Structures are given as structure tokens and as C-alpha cells.
């Protein structure tokens, strides 16, 4: 069987599994999957900056939170707003925030970039906590109406049903991940990777570096906003916790565990992280302690994450079966 045929079969099986999931595993695990999907997209959007453009952000939560608050506020204040526009408003909020910050952020890199993001995210967190009138402070905004997914004349699906929401979330999150994946395969994606490796040379090849960085930045923020928006709809609640620094560290951890050098690494990392959190929370409340330990171990012994270990194993296997010549996996 050809590899392409295998890929089609594998893909179809996966799709079938995805469609049947809620009926196979019940409500609790359906919700677990949605949570995984949200954070998988969040981590992938984060890695667009780190793995692909070489920028480490310690404040990505502010875009996640902007998406969440944008959608929640829109649904609270506009009583008959449909579902998709509410989602879009969340995304617009995240992109607007990124647009505001981009003039400063595209001119810095390295530690300065990481730290400035930490600072601004913290500022957003404090604002969310203090501006109770707008954001509901510590309690956040909750209980807003969740509109049904409606195409006039065709479908009208109630989003309060966990299975229905699951399909909606899977579609939105899946589509988002696909779009981001596609972007990394385009010429623009090549320039992104070029920026990671050698921004100086990129400038000397005639590319506009600040504008390119800004475009990646907006893309990354926007999709973090999608994740945050879906999160708000899913929980029917968004609070300052979404902006807390720990929520900025989450995609970092997920990406490092899964593998910063691959597109799918963060998704894998989100899955592993979710699994570990689930298991740990049964024994102790101190989940972050375990996360911290894992982060330390991963950085010290497997800095390329899970995907890195897989690639290394593959390379060793290849070397064993194809002797002679330097074989190195081209990216």
C-alpha cells in the first residue's frame, strides 16, 4: 500500500474516531477533549512565535484572555448576538491588542521580548482584577447567554448540549490548527523560519523584517484569541485567571514537553500535559509543583521535547539501516 493511501486511511479512521468520540466516552471525557483542544490551539499559536520565529513570549495569556473577555462581554451586552459573530469579536479583541503592542514588540527580541510580554500580561491581569465594573474582577463574567449555532433555514443546534458543543469546538479548533499549519507551509512560513535562524540575512534578502514579525504576531495573537473565545463559551465564564501568569506559562510547558521544533509538538504537549494534570489532581492539589518538576526535567534532559526524542530515535534507526553518509533529517 502506498504511503498516500495509508495516510488517507489513517486520516479517515481518525476522523471517524473524532466523530464518534462523545458517544464512545461520555460527557466527562468529551469535556476533557474540548479542554485539550482549546489548549492545543493556544499552544500551537504560541509556538508560532517560539518554534517558528524564535520569539519566546511569557505573556501569551493576554491574547487568550482578550479573546475570552471579548466574547463574554459581547454576549453580555448584546442580547441577541449570534454565535459566530461573538467568536469573531473575541478574535478581533485579541488582534487589536496585538496591533497596539506590535510597534514596540517587533523591535525587540530575545530576553527583552520575553520579559516585556510578562510585564504587559501582568498589567492586563491587574486591570482585569481591578476594573470590577467592566470585567467582574475576581469573579469574572459568567452566565451569559450561549447562542445556538444557527444557519438560517438549515441548522439550529443548541450549544448547551456537551456533544453539540464538542462538534462545534472540534470544527473551530481543528480548522484553526489547519490554517496555521498551512501558513507554515507557505512562502510566508519560510520567511518566518528564516527570521528564527538569521534575521539579519532575512533583511539582506529584501524582506521587510518588522512587517513580517508584526504579521506573525497578529496571527499568533488572533488564534490565541480563538482559543480563549471558545474557552469562554465552553465554561460560560471568563475571569482574571485566564490572564494570570500561570496561564502564560502553560503553553510554554506544553510546547517544551511536546517539542518546540515541530508544528505538532505543542498539540502532543497539550495532550501529555492534560493527562498529567488529570492524574496528578487525583492525588494532590499541588499540580503546578509536578508541572514545575516536569519542566525542569524536560529542559535538562530532553530539551527538544517528546517530538525531539521521537526524531532522535528515528534518526538512530535510520542510521542503523542505511549505513554510510551523513543522514540528517531536513526540516
Amino acid at each position, binding site marked *: 500500500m502506498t504511503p498516500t493511501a495509508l495516510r488517507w486511511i489513517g486520516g479517515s479512521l481518525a476522523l471517524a474516531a473524532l466523530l464518534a468520540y462523545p458517544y464512545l466516552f461520555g460527557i466527562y471525557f468529551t469535556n476533557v477533549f474540548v479542554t485539550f483542544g482549546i489548549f492545543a490551539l493556544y499552544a500551537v499559536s504560541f509556538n508560532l512565535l517560539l518554534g517558528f520565529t524564535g520569539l519566546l513570549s511569557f505573556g501569551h495569556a493576554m491574547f487568550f484572555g482578550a479573546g475570552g473577555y471579548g466574547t463574554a462581554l459581547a454576549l453580555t451586552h448584546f442580547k441577541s448576538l449570534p454565535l459566530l459573530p461573538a467568536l469573531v469579536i473575541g478574535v478581533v479583541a485579541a488582534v487589536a491588542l496585538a496591533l497596539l503592542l506590535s510597534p*514596540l514588540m517587533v523591535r525587540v527580541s530575545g530576553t*527583552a521580548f520575553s520579559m*516585556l510580554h510578562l*510585564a*504587559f500580561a501582568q498589567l492586563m491581569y*491587574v486591570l482585569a482584577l481591578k476594573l470590577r465594573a467592566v470585567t467582574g474582577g475576581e469573579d469574572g463574567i459568567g452566565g451569559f447567554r450561549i447562542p445556538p449555532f444557527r444557519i438560517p433555514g438549515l441548522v439550529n443546534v443548541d450549544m448547551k448540549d456537551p456533544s453539540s458543543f464538542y462538534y462545534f469546538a472540534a470544527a473551530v479548533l481543528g480548522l484553526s490548527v489547519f490554517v496555521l499549519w498551512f501558513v507554515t507551509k507557505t512562502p510566508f512560513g519560510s520567511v518566518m523560519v528564516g527570521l528564527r535562524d538569521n534575521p539579519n540575512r532575512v533583511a539582506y534578502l529584501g524582506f521587510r523584517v518588522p512587517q513580517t514579525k508584526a504579521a506573525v504576531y497578529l496571527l499568533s495573537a488572533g488564534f490565541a484569541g480563538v482559543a480563549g473565545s471558545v474557552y469562554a463559551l465552553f465554561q460560560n465564564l471568563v475571569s482574571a485567571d485566564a490572564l494570570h501568569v500561570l496561564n502564560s*506559562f502553560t503553553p510554554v510547558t506544553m510546547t517544551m514537553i511536546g517539542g518546540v521544533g515541530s508544528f505538532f509538538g505543542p498539540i502532543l504537549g497539550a495532550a501529555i500535559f492534560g493527562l498529567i494534570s488529570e492524574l496528578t489532581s487525583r492525588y494532590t492539589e499541588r499540580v503546578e*509543583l509536578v508541572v*514545575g518538576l516536569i519542566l*525542569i526535567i524536560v529542559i535538562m534532559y530532553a530539551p527538544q521535547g517528546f517530538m525531539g526524542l521521537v526524531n532522535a530515535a528515528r534518526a538512530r534507526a535510520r542510521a542503523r539501516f542505511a549505513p554510510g553518509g551523513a543522514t540528517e533529517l531536513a526540516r
Partner: protein
Amino acid sequence: MDPTTAMYVAQGVHGLAYGMLLFLVASGLTMVFGMMGILNIAHASFFMLSAYFSYQVLAVFGSFWLALLVAPVVAAALGVLCERLLLRRVHAFGHMGELILTVGISLVILEGVKVFWGTESLPIHVPAILEGRLALGGLDYPVYRLFVIGLALVVLGVLAALLYTTRLGMVVRAAVSDSGMVNALGVNVPLVFMLVFGTGTWLAGVAGVVIAPILTVYPGLADQMGMDAFVVVVTGGLGSLWGAFLVSVILGELNAYGVQFVSQLAPVLMFLFMAIVLAFRPMGLFGERE
């Protein structure tokens, strides 16, 4: 002196006390950055750890002064251990690896204290000798606050003297501004690293013990101080001690007066200040372009 002026002055003293403590914490942070190129995100965690250690020493031996002596040293020793065993291994992977590692360490410490000491707020009493108020120039000042300012100034004075008059101090200053060059001159850079890291952590530890009676010892102690110290370092200039000093004092006062006048939004003032400075000088007030 009329009550309003009295209030202003009192706030000023409080602000100065906090500013001094902030500088104790921030100085270590900025020097480690100058030497290693990374901002140790776990720095504030050691600050908090020292506060917890002091609580423990107090609980067992009942002496605040013993706590002040011992706790920072233990915290510093742990910090140096982290540097030798963990950070140094990751050095080859570049700044990102080191940054993320410090995140991991901070998470472990932040949650670890909850495991050993619980999540409740642990009160620490000001030692009897420092209780009460002192009348100076027609005003009453809390003795403890004056003690804090005094202690901080003494510690910093000794540090400054060491840095600027001894040969070791000169080597450290050189290493902070250009560690690569110092390495080429045959100085044992790893040893200097350890010294700077240890001293910086020790300073944060001292601040931790001293601030405990004011803020009590609780798991969220690292959050506020950590963020404040970090803002100080970024705004004052990464690697600049003078910048850190200036901004610490400014922030201390902003905080004190901010709480008085804008109460809820006081923290925002701090970030606003940082944002304005960075908009004009992205490398901080006294920082040099990386």
C-alpha cells in the same frame, strides 16, 4: 506639623522602606542578568523561601535576629545549588532554556512552600526592641520601618564599598558588564557567577526576612515582590545597579502615594511608569542595548 503633612511624610517613609526592600531584591536580579544574560524568574521565589525559613527559625528558636542571620544564608545556599546543578547544565542551550528552567524552579518553590507550610498566612511579630514609634522632628515614625530603611542602607553601603574599593569587587563589576571578556582574562568565571548569584539571592533573602513582619508570610508573597522587582530591573536598565536603585525608590513612593490616592489602581501606575519609560528607551533608563 499638621495632620495632612504628617500623613504625606508617613507615606513617604513607608514608600522609602518598601523601595529599599525592593532594591535589595532587584539588585541581585539585575546583577545576575548582567552576568548571565537571563532574568532569573525564580529570584522572587527565593525571597519568599527565606521568609518561610525565618518563620521556621522563629518557631523553633524564638529569635528574630537568628532568623535574620540564618534564613537568607540557607536560601542563598539553595540558590547556588540550583545554579550549579541545574542552570549551568542548560547554559549551552541558550537563554531560552535558562529562562524556562527558572520558570520551572519558581513553580516548584511556589508550590513547595504550600506543601510544607500550608496555604494560610503565617504572622511574624516585630521583635520587641523594634516595636513602637519614634518621635523625630515633630513626627511619629514606626520604629520598624526606620529599622528596615537603616538595615537596607547598611547592607547596600557594605555592598557598594566591596564593589567599588576591593579587587574582587572590580572583577565582579567587570564580569557583570562583560563576562566573555573577563573569561578571556583568565578569571574563574564560574566561581564569580556563583558568588554573584549567591550574594544576589542572599540580598533577596534578607529582604524576605525583613518584610515578613510587615506583610506576613504567605504563598503569594513572591508574586507582588517578584513583579515589582522585575519591573524595576526592566525599567531601570538590565544590569544597571543605579537604575535599579532609582526606580526602586520611585516605585516605592509611587506605590505608597498611589495607594493613598488611586487605591485600587495603584499597581497600574507602576506599569504605566514602565510603559512610558520603555516607549522612549526600550532598554531601560540606564540600560545598554543588548
